[in-house]
């Protein structure tokens, strides 16, 4: 069972990112769960969402908080400084960050693997959200798929067709470009 945690800010699409990723794995025939961390949701405030993806052979599924995720998606790099998003992350886990900076510049300790992509720039270019508040969820998912290969890019694109309510073609292009532009750093 693979457990994921997604950190973002209200308006960036963290909850839809969780659902879309789960949908991609579900289409690939795997059992999944997706849920948001329910709280007071305001634009700009930190938001957390989660997903569970079964691995072959998993026949029981739990229903409890994800405390020790295998991988993280971070939709806003300023959360690295304020929201302690690395808490509980398992050794060797991927930290996929939306930033224009290269992976080795983030000061993330070497027991984790880091991938970066400028999802905000990609989202702006495709007019997803506004220039001030781009919706980066589909772009960061492209980077996540590149880093982890937990689902295929094709499955992700089909899930975007299914889950994303507007600008489907732009979101597909954002995910594909992010997939191609992701910078990976393997430090383990």
């Amino acid at each position: 069972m693979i457990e994921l945690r997604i950190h973002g800010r209200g308006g960036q699409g963290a909850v839809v990112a969780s659902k879309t990723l789960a949908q991609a794995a579900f289409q690939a025939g795997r059992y999944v769960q997706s849920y948001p961390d329910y709280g007071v949701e305001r634009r700009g405030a930190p938001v957390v969402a989660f997903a569970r993806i079964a691995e072959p052979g998993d026949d029981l599924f739990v229903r409890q908080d994800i405390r020790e995720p295998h991988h993280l998606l971070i939709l806003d790099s300023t959360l690295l400084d304020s929201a302690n998003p690395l808490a509980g992350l398992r050794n060797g886990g991927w930290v996929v960050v939306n930033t224009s900076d290269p992976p080795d510049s983030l000061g993330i300790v070497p027991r984790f693997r880091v991938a970066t992509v400028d999802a905000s720039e990609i989202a702006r270019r495709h007019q997803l959200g506004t220039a001030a508040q781009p919706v980066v969820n589909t772009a960061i998912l492209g980077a996540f798929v590149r880093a982890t290969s937990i689902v295929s890019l094709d499955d992700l694109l089909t899930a975007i067709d299914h889950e994303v309510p507007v600008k489907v073609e732009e979101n597909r292009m954002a995910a594909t470009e992010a997939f191609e532009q992701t910078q990976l750093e393997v430090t383990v």
Partner: protein
Amino acid sequence: MPERLLLTGNHAAAYGAMLSKAEVISAYPITPQTMIVELLSELTASGRMPAKFITVESEHSAMAACVGASSAGARAYTATSGQGLALMHEMLHWAVGARLPIVLTNVSRAMAPGWSIWCDQNDILSQRDVGWMMLFAESVQEAQDFIIWMYRVAEQVFLPGMVGMDAFILSHTAEPLIVHDQDAVDAYLPKFEPLYDLDPAQPRAYGGLVNRDHYFELRYKIYENMDRAGQLLVEAGEEFGDVLGHKYTPLEGYLLDDAEYVFVSAGAMTSNVRQAVRDMREKGIKAGLLRVIAFRPFPIDGIRSILAGRRKVAVLDRNMSAGHSGIFAEEIRSALLGQPDAPPVYGYIVGIGGRDVRVETAMDICDDVLVREEPEMALFVGVKGLPIGPLRKDASIRPLQPLEVMR
């Protein structure tokens, strides 16, 4: 063909009402309402679900509208949560006394104050004695299917039924859901045939004054039909398997055959207890799980036969009746009382107000029950600063001020 979708428990419940071809949905559309009726309003507005959707000013009125619709011969459905179910209470009684097979979904939320959107089961269990059937769902799939199963039984005994779904853990979590083929559901659940119509050509009085020489018999028949619903749940659960592909039962066991220690659970946390029971087995502990799905009618005979002769029974209650015990533990003790080979029942209170009940929580309870000598009415698990155990003995409970001082 059945469809496989990734949906939340809320949306699964809406699909359950749609597949059941509910004809009237009445709901209060504001907090503590859930996305169940949001989706139902969309489905009815778009014409996909040919039902009348009535928004009302309170949950009390929502149930009153369901009472009216069901009296007129319509299949009626509503959904609520927490305080909303409490506000509905008076009309819940009406649905029973009027013998109306209404079905509702309750998303179980902890009661306020303090306000909470998180789960425990005190809201639904506070309606224990009203005379509604009650089923507890563990999965998103069951949040849909139990509505269909419930209508099948409700319309045979002319009693209403509610399906409990744990807030957030099921209501807001998306999981794979098999949306059954409509023709198959139609075959399982035929059109509702009311006993009486509201027909101006044949005027009748409903809900009138009943003297001492009739009321007791009316209630006796309610008890009788609730009792009969126990067997009908079994039969309708089997038919569900035949027609729709998954058999349901009022009780579900896991690794029970040679189990010496049986853990009893209901609702969504059961998934974690099941995993824990498997982990216990790997440690060599002869553990098993009994999940209570039907709470009313309570499957007393099944509980007696399954639990007889076990070494210990640990009941996990996501609820509490302050001053007594957890409510499932209380019901199970009562079922076992005086039975041959009745095991001791250890009551554990967990997860109040949505506190996470984890696989580890069940493992901790296992460690506790293995060594605890005397069964306790209520052992609290996960209260900050306290180990698993009964109420603290040295509690510095502040006595009330004398009346004069308070003035």
